């Protein structure tokens, strides 16, 4: 019934003008120390020029994702891959894990489970050496992989102090246990987490608060290698099929039995709703003490799973107003992040999608609902013609406001034939948070933002531990790009490495509120979010001109609360979970 106007559009909504009032009210009533010193200052300073530079080659990284594009346009070909940033050997430096594809015959018979056949299809683990360059340790680590890889999740599922890897793929996933000596062991079978179908993003989350990480694995579609023609029946116009042509499929949810094995509990946990899941991000959006998560679905309603606190979940996407855009339309949800970008103490959501849809920014109202604020926050017009995948809120210039970095590129390599103003290859987007909304600062932030890629996965982390967050971006059937943050700024920062003891050792799900003289910020510990990727688990805060954090308040997943006072800026600080509640410490 939409009249006479096919292009994507959105309507504004009055609620956004009431947000400040609503949020403040709930700040006062929230049980946890959410910032009453809400920052009112905004960042008037210009964006730091030439903030990012591509240093991939100089770091010794030479990786090419093999998508194995065919003339049949199997949808699988255009969706990968993911990347992870993790410190697998606990040397204090982030390492890089890259997921790779596998060869596909043209045509590929229905029922095929593609397998890697040579070095060029291996997944890769790059170890960061003390001089900041990387070495390929894949073979030594035993992480070559087997099938057509998609994504990766990082978490220490057995709390032994070493990060483990879960690699998703088409036709079966792999769990690699970190042996603590630079090698990994494929424990998929014994753990019982192989799954099946087409898995995409996965996340380690302690769903039931028992101190051990559970595993949520999204699946995209009920799909096989069928030789179907989508797009116009003309030479060169065959296109990847729209997800509407395929049925949704339930995710896999594995409960950690604490003995190296897992039990699939999607149905029992209320998480078996069929989905077309691509992106996954976690946060306790209603601050009730139980971690929730959001599923970015492609071309169907998005899901927000509310943790009922009894080990079960319910989808509240519609009632929370994050299932659709402001016009009530579904969109092609792909990447997602869940973080407090406006520093009001409530986690907000950003979801990337396809061109003509506009990336969705949902501001948390603090009452269990969200407001779609893409137009008001400047993100709508900025992203109308773009297609986004990997996405993260991150404070690249350490001014105290979380910015946005987005990996872009259309899924259809034929898109320009039918939509000449759209692009298959697109540059990255850097949107700076001014405190009043987002501004596209890509043009002044480095030549890397002029290079058009078919970008997909993206992980964020401080590779060189200088307090400025870097990024690693994968491209479909192309090379990986390591973007070094060289923003010239005198702003201060803190990088917090939380170590759980009663809680899961990664402290995934812990909430951190940081208060300075200027204001306050809020973050959740997570390795998940973005698209198919896993980021640095350490929590980063930009402190602007403040060289001391007056208070750091942590709510651990166990429920233990911890407060640190007068924490000096510009350091990487390890924080161990105290044995009981109410602990205070001065580092």
């Amino acid at each position, binding site marked *: *019934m939409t009249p006479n106007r096919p292009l994507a559009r959105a309507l504004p*909504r*009055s609620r956004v003008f009431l947000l400040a009032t609503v949020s403040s009210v709930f700040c006062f009533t929230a049980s946890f120390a959410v910032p009453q010193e809400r920052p009112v200052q905004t960042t008037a300073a210009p964006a730091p020029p030439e903030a990012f530079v591509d240093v991939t080659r100089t770091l010794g990284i030479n990786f090419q994702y093999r998508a194995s594009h065919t003339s049949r346009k199997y949808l699988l070909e255009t969706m990968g891959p993911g990347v992870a940033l993790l410190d697998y050997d606990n040397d204090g430096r982030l390492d890089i894990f890259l997921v790779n594809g596998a060869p596909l015959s043209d045509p590929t018979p229905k029922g095929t489970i593609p397998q890697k056949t040579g070095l060029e299809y291996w997944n890769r683990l790059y170890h960061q050496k003390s001089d900041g360059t990387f070495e390929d340790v894949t073979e030594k680590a035993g992480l070559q992989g087997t099938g057509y890889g998609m994504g990766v999740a990082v978490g220490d599922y057995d709390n032994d102090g070493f990060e483990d890897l879960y690699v998703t793929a088409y036709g079966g996933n792999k769990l690699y246990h970190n042996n603590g000596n630079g090698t990994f062991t494929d424990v998929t079978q014994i753990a019982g987490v192989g799954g099946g179908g087409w898995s995409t993003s996965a996340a380690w989350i302690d769903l039931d608060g028992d101190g051990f990480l559970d595993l949520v694995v999204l699946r995209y579609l009920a799909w096989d290698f069928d030789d179907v*023609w989508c797009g116009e029946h003309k030479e060169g116009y065959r296109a990847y099929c729209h997800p*509407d*042509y395929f049925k949704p499929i339930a995710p896999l949810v594995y409960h950690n039995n604490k003995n190296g094995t897992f039990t699939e509990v999607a149905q029992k946990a209320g998480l078996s709703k069929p989905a077309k899941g691509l992106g996954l991000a976690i946060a306790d959006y209603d601050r009730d003490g139980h971690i929730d998560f959001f599923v970015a679905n492609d071309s169907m309603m998005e899901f927000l799973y509310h943790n009922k606190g009894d080990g079960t979940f319910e989808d509240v996407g519609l009632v929370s107003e994050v299932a659709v855009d402001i016009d009530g339309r579904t969109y092609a949800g792909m990447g997602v992040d869940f973080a407090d970008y406006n520093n009001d103490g409530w986690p907000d959501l950003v979801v990337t999608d396809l061109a003509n849809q506009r990336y969705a920014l949902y501001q948390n109202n603090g009452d269990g609902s969200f407001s779609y604020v893409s137009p008001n926050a400047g993100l709508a017009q900025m992203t109308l013609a773009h297609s986004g995948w990997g996405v993260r809120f991150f404070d690249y210039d350490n001014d105290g406001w979380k910015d946005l970095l987005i990996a872009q590129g259309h899924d259809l390599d034929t898109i320009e034939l039918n939509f000449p103003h759209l692009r298959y290859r697109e540059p990255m987007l850097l949107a700076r948070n001014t405190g009043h909304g987002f501004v596209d600062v890509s043009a002044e932030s480095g030549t890397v933002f002029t290079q058009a890629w078919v970008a997909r996965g993206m992980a964020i982390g401080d590779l060189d531990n200088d307090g400025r967050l870097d990024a690693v971006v994968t491209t479909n059937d192309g090379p990986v790009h390591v973007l070094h943050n060289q923003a010239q700024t005198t702003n201060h920062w803190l990088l917090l490495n939380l170590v759980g003891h009663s809680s899961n050792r990664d402290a995934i799900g812990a909430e951190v509120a940081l208060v300075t003289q200027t204001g306050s910020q809020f973050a959740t510990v997570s390795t998940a979010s973005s698209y198919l990727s896993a980021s640095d688990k350490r929590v980063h805060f930009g402190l602007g001109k403040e060289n001391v954090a007056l208070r750091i308040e942590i709510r651990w997943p166990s429920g233990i609360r911890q407060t640190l006072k007068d924490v000096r800026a510009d350091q990487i600080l390890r924080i161990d979970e105290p044995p009981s509640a109410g602990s205070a410490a001065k580092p």
Partner: protein
Amino acid sequence: MNTRSVNRLLFLGLTALCLGFPLPTRAQTEGDFGHGIAEFRAGNYSSAVEFFTRAEAVSPGTTAALLYKGKSLVHLSDFPAAEQALQRYLISHPDSTDALYLLGFVLHRQNRPSESLSIYTRAAAITPPTGDDLKIVGLNYVLLDDYADAIQWLQKAVEIEPRNQDAWYYLGRTYYTKARLGEARKAFQTLLSLDPQDPRAENNLGLIYETDGQPAAAMEAYRKAIAWQEQNLHPSEQPYVNLGNLLMEQGQSNEALAPLEKAAALAPNNAFCHMILGIAYRQNGKLDKAQHELETATQLEPDNPTAHYQLGRLYKEQHALDRAQAEFEKTAELKTRLAGSQLTPPPKR
């Protein structure tokens, strides 16, 4: 295609009928057939149909009674009956391009684009098509979601008839739909050069300005379109909707009310008009009015998930949580059902 477009097509078809087809011979104007022609010329199409039916019954196949019966039925928008008459006429007059072209149009109007194209192909093999015919051919491809071919035939239509305003309009719309904004702009500007106060062209230029991030220019275009169609007997709701929508996007939801109220008045059966007006009322805190409009929208289109979603949001704001939940559940059900309805796989290669 919206109601206005359909009405225009009907008008065009009728124009073609009246102007483009040969008049009957003297011999054919006697008796029932002659009376039928007189009634047809007088615009009494129901009566004409009766005369033509009798004429055909008395002397089967000897007059053009069936052809004219078909034409009369098109005037009456009875396309299935028109198709039947024309098909019968074509049995005895298989090479009648009058009948073939009209049948192509009739099939198009019945949303049978493939059959329509097949008939147009038959007709064109005998007599070259006019710009209007090619326009319908192009619109058939629009119905088939084949925009590349639609553009090709609409371009040919304006090549043959450079002053065919409707062909330019549909060419512009097709370009716009495919986001070929520069070409769409040129098409609408050409239409304005043919009719400097064509509200459709100006309204669509407004949409293009909006897409280009020029809201002020867009607003001016919508206002011009509204002014130009003021004297029309049947003004379109479109520029009012677009103006109201844009005002809302600009945060001027109070100013949006007047055009949106006008749009809903002009198109009382258009659910979208009621829905967007309801949203505007909600944004202005007029929750009772919003409720009325959104409920009207859901009544007009009970299977529209967006209308139910907006009504659910309103109920939630009114703290009618049970009703809100019911609307959200309805939204979910409809979204799921609609997604399922698209699961038909594309053809195998």
